[in-house]
């Protein structure tokens, strides 16, 4: 008599009916998590349909072309000192041009910029992986074109973004509103899929209707109307239905994010813009948001003239912000499920220019952070003498980095997203 499958089927139908009747007034992703609760127990890790686990990828974009040679310094190479008389930094312990590299790989004679003390600390804890010489064939030296190439994950630099395609594929065509979040002025191309569009905001406080700020007692009325969702009598599939549901999604996402960032962080953060963005990301992770991909960026790397001071400041801000972020995640107990990747659209020319700066170049280092990384320097540091028109020849294809992050870390199929298979630089443990 007691047939468990009949029972569960009846429960499903009953709950299904309940859900259907509420569906019209619920935001998309609340509905989906309600559906998720009905999933069989064996699938408990999957908190939402199409989300296999809770791993998170954070991308930090360095805009303007970070000088890789002075960030990850080949201090042991005479050509480095030769080509950059006014810029080359000294080997560990021997300051030159105002600084001495921090040891990264003694055997290979490679160190970190003296101001990257934050990354050095993470390196010493085995939480930093540096991939040397990352680039792509036929390098483009235009900021925009090269950034498009990195963001698309395709050498032609056109079409959707690599992370947008990942979200599309991971969510089976119906991505939740907050699968990908960008903290920045505009949503990056990297997060644009066919279906999936990221949540993007510059500051959480702006991610809302600002009408009430202009005066008047409108906020309560606005909230009532925005939260009404799909009104009775509105046809399913109509434009009104779509817009009313998206407005409710937006309101709920906004509430969630603004509530998340209100809490004081567990560790102090420095005052830089990047640190603020990462603090916001850490707050959202701490709050248990289901977001799988976060994207932040930092500008100012186009150091054509008088580079040492400005690049030094950027290195300080970068290292300190990333260190605070990692410490915050560790304090939350979330660091094990977060990997952070940091890239720039290109490196800079080997030889310094006449203004004590550097011009647009090609390959550069990628930093990958977190307890899950394979620590140390990975890949082959490009030769400083075997050059292509004065520029480094890349040694690791950037799509290999993406492939490992998406495949090995996020456990997603990568062929369709990246259009092929590339050599894995070995940046994730295990």
């Amino acid at each position, binding site marked *: 008599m007691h047939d468990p499958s009949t029972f569960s089927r009846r429960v499903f139908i009953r709950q299904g009916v309940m859900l259907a009747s509420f569906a019209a007034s619920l935001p998309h992703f609340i509905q989906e998590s309600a559906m998720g609760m009905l999933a069989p127990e064996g699938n408990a890790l999957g908190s939402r349909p199409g989300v296999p686990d809770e791993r998170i990828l954070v991308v930090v974009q360095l805009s303007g072309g970070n000088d890789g040679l002075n960030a990850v310094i080949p201090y042991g190479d005479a050509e480095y000192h030769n080509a950059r008389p006014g810029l080359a930094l000294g080997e560990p312990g021997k300051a030159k041009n105002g600084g001495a590299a921090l040891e990264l790989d003694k055997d290979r004679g490679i160190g970190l910029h003296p101001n990257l003390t934050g990354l050095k600390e993470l390196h010493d804890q085995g939480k930093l992986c540096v991939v040397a010489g990352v680039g792509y064939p036929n390098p483009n030296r235009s900021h925009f074109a090269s950034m498009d190439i990195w963001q698309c994950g395709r050498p032609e630099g056109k079409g959707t973004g690599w992370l947008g395609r990942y979200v599309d594929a991971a969510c089976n065509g119906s991505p939740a*509103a907050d699968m990908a979040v960008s903290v920045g002025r505009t949503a990056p191309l990297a997060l644009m899929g066919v279906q999936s569009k990221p949540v993007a905001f510059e500051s959480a406080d702006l991610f809302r209707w*600002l*009408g009430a700020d202009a005066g008047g*007692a409108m906020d309560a009325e606005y909230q009532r109307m925005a939260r009404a969702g799909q009104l009775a009598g509105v046809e399913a599939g109509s434009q009104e239905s779509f817009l009313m549901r998206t407005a409710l999604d937006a309101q709920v996402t906004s509430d969630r994010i603004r509530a998340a960032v209100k809490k004081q962080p567990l560790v102090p953060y420095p005052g830089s813009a990047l640190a603020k963005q990462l603090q916001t990301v850490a707050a959202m992770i701490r709050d248990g948001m289901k977001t799988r991909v976060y994207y932040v960026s930092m500008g100012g790397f186009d150091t054509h003239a008088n580079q040492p001071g400005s690049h030094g400041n950027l290195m300080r801000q970068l290292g300190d912000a990333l260190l605070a972020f990692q410490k915050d995640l560790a304090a939350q107990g979330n660091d094990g499920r977060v990997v952070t990747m940091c890239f720039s659209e290109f490196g800079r020319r080997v030889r310094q220019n006449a*203004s004590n700066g550097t011009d647009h170049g090609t390959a550069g280092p990628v930093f990958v952070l977190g307890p899950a990384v394979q620590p140390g320097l990975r890949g082959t540091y490009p030769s400083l003498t075997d050059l292509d028109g004065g520029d480094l020849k890349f040694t690791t294809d950037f799509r290999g980095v993406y492939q490992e992050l998406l495949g090995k870390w996020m456990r997603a199929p990568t062929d369709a997203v990246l259009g092929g298979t590339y050599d894995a630089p070995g940046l994730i443990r295990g």
Partner: protein
Amino acid sequence: MTPRRPAPPADLAPLAAARFDAAAARHLLSRAGFGGTPAQVDALAAMGLDRAVDLVVRYGDQPAKPVSPDDFDRDLIPPLTREEREQLQRARRERDEATVERLERKENQTKAEDRRQLQSMREWWIARMIETARPLEEKMTLFWHGHFATGARTIEDSWLMFQQNQLFRTHATGNFATLALHVIRDPAMIKYLDNDDSRRGRPNENLARELLELFVLGEGSGYTEQDIKEGARALTGYTVEGEEFTFREANHDGGPKTILGQRGNWNGDDLVRIALGRVACSRFICGKLYRYFVNDVPEGDLPPDHAAARAAFIDAMAAELRANQYELAPVLGKLFRSAHFHDASNRASVIKGPAQLVVQTVRQLGTPPRQLSSLTAACELMGQDLFQPPNVKGWDGGRSWINTSTLFVRQNVAIYLLTGKRPGMYDWENDSARFDADALVAGGGAGVGAGANAGNDPSPEALVDRLLAVTLATSAHPSRREELVRFASQQTSPGARADRTLSTLALITALPEYQLA
């Protein structure tokens, strides 16, 4: 459950003249243009259907600010010459740092100047959309920009983007075949799709591929990879010299080719002509025009009888386009006259694009235009960076405009236009010009709601009805009206009472329904 609307007529039959009322005139002005004030709506309604549509479509008699090739600077700072580029390469090889630096500085300066000019072009275009007496001209120019999408960042020459923009304006409602022949000679397009790199023996397929896939036939319409290869050969030699189109006979592959089953010594013009001979071309163009002007609800979300009526209507448009040898104005005229276009199911059925949203708010509500740079910045935040479509496919439009982030920006740009206050920390300029919302209520222009007897101090009901009627594309949901009436009647303190109209209007622009045209 409300009964489902009946499907609209499936042919181009015109609306009965008597049914062209103020609401129909508003619909016409909102779709064929960027909306208008109640007074403009009334004037259009009084003209009757035929004259009203002619006024909108045959806009040649309407005044227009002339566009001169000198409106923008052609030789801002001349880009590096071929000699200079060679010199730069040599200097890099020889490690002549002083020369490398001098030339790169020049190049960077040029690019910065060019980006500044591009920004002034964006503002110029938005201003034109706001001011024009020929709204369809600008609306079709925007349509062609999205159709023959070209990105300014790739070609790095704002003047060529300006030339292309003017090409689209000149042929906005002209002949599609003529426009397509101009497009394969357009320097911006040639550079964007690398045809300047295409020559006999090593053709570049980019332009031929996009021509068949995105510009004239549409994906999956029966052409093959071989057609693209042969088409690319036909387009060899269509290149750019300086900033002008040139045909280089020496680089052209004059040999025989088979394109879409036809064999001959075809050139690029032949490729366009052969593709346009296909019925698929007229259907493809009319399908896009339909989604832009009539209804962009995805096919899958339409009831089957509505989907069938849409397909039949697009076929009828396509037949009309072919019968008129690809002249666009006659087809647009029939479209805007048709009972199908005016059907209730095609009201509030198109999602306003970002430029449309901004321009329509200014034109329809009569707000000050505020800072143009803020409007173009808002368009970018909403996903429509003018002169920089996301890729060669252009903007997808419709529901792709809307997500949780863009929806807030859409609401907040309306607040900015209404109040001039820079919302929060957006990078927009404060603007002190005052917007008189009460003029919308007190002003003339009957025929749109209960404004006639509204007087100077209308009841909350009259106020709300009037504002909804001049703002939304279709009648508001009863519960919305109820909410707003309650809100308006609660504004009783002296300060709140003075702001009652403006704050009620601000709430209406924040409704999801406000995103619909």
